């Protein structure tokens, strides 16, 4: 079994290596090769899972040290894996959803000439993500952490010929790097505090480190989580990341990579529990982001960006739950898994719609598509019901528990957090209903595809550009993954909740406490249902009863701000981009004028002085004679003077 863990990472890595270095020979079979690598690692994951189920609760953890990576003095970083129930959950989610999305991409990317590389990058992503969740120390986790950042960079910027895609990719990497900075300082702090950064020793010894130190480590880890999981204040990259191909948005920017922050907080539970202030920071970040994302999601007309806002908001729920401590860990991870199903399904549905609509992304140009794309409609609809928390579907079980846990925090804090979570649920219902209605219902507001000279979003559009769209159902390779994910969004939550199966599965790793909410569980559920109905009704009143205008109305100040991501980008632009440009430009100037100037100035003054001195050498014999006489006179005078004294 130990060897299988290494293989789990190695198979997609080898796939990536083969696809990226293999040259044109692999152009044809590349997509299938990539999908095969993903499927093999999923199969390995299932084997390990079965093996784990066969063992008792305490023996389920597997630890493997493969080799010493960086041994320098007392600093020891090993390449070692740690497989427990928590990482197992992630492994299955990553490889499972990953394989489905590979399959989907075969159809989706069929017309792209660089698809071999696309699959190479996807494989690279899988390998890095698996490394992230399987690592047994923070430094190796950091390798995976940056590795997924790289894969995300490459995939967001996959259509590099579009400047917007290249910019978005760069932005994602940079914002993530800011978070990574937190991660690397956290690791350094762990090293100076504990002399190691392996999970086992750090987490067991955490309670001896003193609260101040733990708070610092926890806050730095939170910064890292914010970067990777697009939480306020490092959320600005996620919306732009939608420049990438849609399967990428589904896999990386919805189901797996962006949830790495939740994994980090859950994994480092012992550190956070020793630092209540940091936990408060975590729940604040979660609550703020879940509202922020939801509000942004309401205003976007671009279907992918609306879904991106929703992703941000849902991860806000998870972070909120993870920040609550043992009361929330299990539900954070459960919501993470169910969200992985329905959000990936929704994105794939969006991709399918775009595929049929000449890659149009503006929902105001959709409408009435349910007749033309029945499979997409049904799977998207099930995902929709799941995300808004329709009773019986996945999202209902997981989100309801988080809201309950938020109330259970107790005191004013509990009321604020619970209120925010409830409000978030209402807004979720509102914006998702809006997406649903604008896309699949109402009259057809289609328009001809942009003419070929405009840079089109997806290259496949090239062939069909110019005419009115002919919406059609997508090929089998695309619909099958959508159906599987839709099944997951319907049943996963229910299955997890039978006998509290998921809770019992994860409890040995994360620990669990029952929260006692000031409101009863039933009251919370009822309140959730009420706000759900409210949100849906509001959206229906606004978009279902009246025709949707094909161009966006100006809207209120809030709407306008929300369309611009609540002005966060403008802030970044003015403060960071402009400020940075000024700083670098003035430094370049200073380097030239000041640092170089001092040296050049010295040289120039020596030169100038020599120029002056040179004038004395005028070539007139008589002036030389004068200086000789003068010199002799001075010498004689000096001699006499010395004598006299």
């Amino acid at each position, binding site marked *: 079994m130990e060897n299988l863990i290494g293989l789990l990472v190695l198979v997609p890595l080898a796939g990536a290596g083969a696809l*990226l270095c293999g040259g044109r020979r692999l152009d044809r079979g590349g997509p299938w090769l990539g999908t095969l690598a993903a499927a093999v690692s999923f199969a390995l994951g299932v084997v390990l899972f079965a093996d784990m189920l066969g063992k008792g609760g305490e023996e389920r953890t597997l630890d493997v040290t493969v*080799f010493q*990576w*960086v*041994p*320098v*003095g007392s*600093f020891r970083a090993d390449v070692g894996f740690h497989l427990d129930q928590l990482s197992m959950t992630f492994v299955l989610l990553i490889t499972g959803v990953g394989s489905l999305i590979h399959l989907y991409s075969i159809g989706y990317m069929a017309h792209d000439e660089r698809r071999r590389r696309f699959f190479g990058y996807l494989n690279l992503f899988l390998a890095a993500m698996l490394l992230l969740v399987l690592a047994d120390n923070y*430094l190796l986790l*950091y*390798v995976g952490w*940056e*590795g997924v950042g*790289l894969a995300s960079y490459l995939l967001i*910027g996959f259509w*590099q*010929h*579009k*400047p917007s*895609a*290249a910019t978005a*990719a*760069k932005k994602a*990497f*940079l914002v993530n*790097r*800011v978070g*990574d*900075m937190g991660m*690397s*300082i956290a690791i*350094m*702090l762990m*090293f*100076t*505090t*504990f*002399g*190691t950064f*392996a999970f*086992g*020793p*750090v987490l*067991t*010894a955490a309670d*001896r*480190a003193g609260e101040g*130190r733990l708070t610092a480590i926890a806050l730095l880890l939170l910064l890292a989580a914010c970067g990777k999981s697009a939480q306020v204040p490092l959320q600005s990259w996620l919306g732009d990341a939608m420049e990438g191909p849609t399967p990428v948005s589904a896999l990386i920017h919805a189901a797996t990579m962006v949830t790495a922050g939740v994994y980090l907080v859950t994994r480092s539970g012992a550190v956070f529990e020793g630092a209540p202030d940091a936990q408060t920071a975590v729940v604040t970040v979660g609550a703020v982001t879940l509202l922020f994302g939801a509000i942004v999601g309401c205003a976007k007309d671009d279907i992918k960006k609306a879904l991106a806002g929703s992703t941000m908001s849902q991860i806000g729920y998870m972070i909120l739950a993870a920040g609550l401590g043992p009361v929330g860990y299990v539900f954070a991870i459960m919501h993470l898994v169910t969200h992985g199903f329905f959000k990936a399904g929704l994105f794939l549905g969006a991709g399918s719609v775009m595929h049929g609509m000449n890659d149009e992304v503006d929902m105001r140009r959709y409408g009435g598509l349910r007749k033309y794309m029945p499979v997409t409609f049904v799977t998207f609809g099930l995902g929709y019901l799941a995300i808004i928390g329709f009773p019986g579907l996945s999202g209902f079980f997981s989100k309801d528990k988080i809201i309950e846990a938020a109330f259970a925090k107790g005191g004013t804090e509990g009321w604020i957090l619970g209120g925010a979570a409830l409000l978030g649920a209402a807004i979720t219902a509102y914006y998702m209903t809006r997406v649903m209605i604008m896309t699949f219902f109402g009259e057809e507001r289609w328009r001809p595809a942009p003419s070929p000279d405009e840079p089109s979003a997806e290259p496949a559009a090239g062939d069909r550009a110019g005419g009115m769209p002919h919406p059609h159902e997508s090929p089998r390779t695309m619909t099958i993954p959508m159906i599987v994910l839709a099944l997951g969004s319907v049943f996963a939550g229910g299955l997890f909740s039978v006998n509290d199966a998921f809770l019992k599965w994860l409890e040995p790793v994360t620990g669990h406490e029952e929260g006692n909410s000031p409101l009863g569980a039933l009251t919370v559920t009822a309140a959730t249902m009420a706000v759900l109905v409210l949100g849906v009704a509001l959206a229906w009143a606004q978009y279902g009863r009246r025709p949707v205008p094909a161009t966006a109305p100006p809207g209120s100040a809030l709407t306008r701000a929300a369309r611009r991501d609540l002005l966060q980008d403008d802030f970044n632009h003015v403060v960071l981009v402009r400020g*940075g440009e000024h*700083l*670098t*430009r003035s*430094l*370049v100037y200073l*380097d030239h004028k000041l*640092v*170089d100037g*001092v*040296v050049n100035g010295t*040289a120039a003054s020596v030169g100038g002085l020599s120029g002056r001195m040179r004038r004395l050498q005028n070539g007139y014999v008589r002036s030389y004679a004068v200086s000789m006489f003068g010199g002799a006179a001075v010498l004689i005078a000096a001699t006499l003077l010395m004598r006299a004294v």
Partner: protein
Amino acid sequence: MSFPLLTVTAAVPAAGALATAAVPAARRAAAKWTALVFSLATLVLAGVQLARFDPDAAGPFQLTESHAWISDFGVRYELGVDGIGVVLVALTALLVPFVVLAGWHDADPLEPATPSRRWRPTQGFFALILMVEAMVVISFEATDVFVFYVFFEAMLIPMYFLIGGFGDRAGERTEDEAAAQRSYAAVKFLLYNLAGGLVMLAAVVGLYAVTADQLGHGTFSLTEIVQARGSGRLHFATVTERALFLGFFFAFAVKAPLWPVHTWLPNAMGEATAPVAVLITAVVDKVGTFAMLRFCLQLFPGASTWATPVIVVLALISILYGALLAVGQRDIKRLIAYASISHFGFIILGIFAMTTQGQGGATLYMVNHGISTAALMLVAGFLISRRGSRLIADYGGVQKVAPVLAGTFLVAGLATLSLPGLAPFVSEFLVLVGTFSRYPVAGAVATVGIVLAALYVLVLYQRTMTGPVEESVRAMPDLRVRELAVVAPLIALLLFLGVYPKPVTRILDPAVEHTMSQVHRTDPQPDVRVSNAEGAK
């Protein structure tokens, strides 16, 4: 007497330089092959050195050679390598064949039919490169301060001609303007380094005076001085030690280069051809940081500790300042030069953090920086030679027409920004951890450097490689076989050392620990003791 391996390792490229220079004017190809063969022979000898070097052997230096040279002044021809020296000799010997191969056409006369018989730029170019190699190798091997000083300075002569005599195609500038800028850069390089060298000369003389005064006979031998210090026969007065330390350090700081004596580097790297730029930053500059470890720290431990706070601050400024200036550059090669300044800041920071991790990281960093910058600069050189311009704005969408070139550029760039999995990450992280455990604030500030590194690398990549295809690069050919043969091994090495740096750290570590013990510093201990049982879970 055993086989003088170290002398031969330095003599082979020197002989190669003479042989290359002697090739008749008309047979340029023969000159290139001669240079390549000799540089490969040096690589083999460096490999033999590595193989015969025993990391665990006692005593500071191995493979030593010692002969009287100028006995009146106590100058001895003493060579010897420790772990750091042997690895850096290997790095030098490894990079030079790539430099030769990458510069294969850089010194071809513009008009092939130049009739003059005496005009032999190609021969000169390769002979000078080999000359530099010989001098760098012997600088890494010298354990006598005087021998080191002689070659440390003599290196400037061939470098001066390489920078001033050979450059890129003029591009938008006229030939005269280009030549003027080249000669400006070459003179600047020479003056800065001469100034540093002169200050060092004064310190070398001072060192001799002190030893002559206290030991009865003047000596320049590193081993002898260190031993005499250890046994108490030699004692520096505090002021003398500090003055001598500053004299040595100034020369090495110019060479390294450290802010604020860095401005020669962007000019020199910008004007020189890419292979020569690699020679400057990856090979010659390493002598500066290497000498800090070997001479500054071992000869003057007390003064090193005294100067540490200031040097740490200067190194931090170098890191951030170099990175910020790299962001603001419009010229590809100058950008890489400023990035190097930032990286040298990391190396110096690691050295003066005085922790095992910091110094181990710094020495490893020297190797990794050599490889990664060589890869990045050489690919940039291939790019520039195709378009004839160094300005970033003249490129765009290159990945569409030359995907392999763009791919290798990206990997080299990612190595420069220290992406985990590639070699520089390991060393950069070690430096950061080492610094953090002694000076937390400095470590945290230096970490900002990794964000800035991402910024300048990705901006460079985005502007040159992505976006719509620029008209002028539309017909750009992808990497040729010769060029791929240069880049691919470097990238493979970056990947290998990123995943498994142990072969190198194993050789470096004992030497680093020896240095640490010379400076009488020990690592800070963690605040919380974690027992072994917990560690093993």
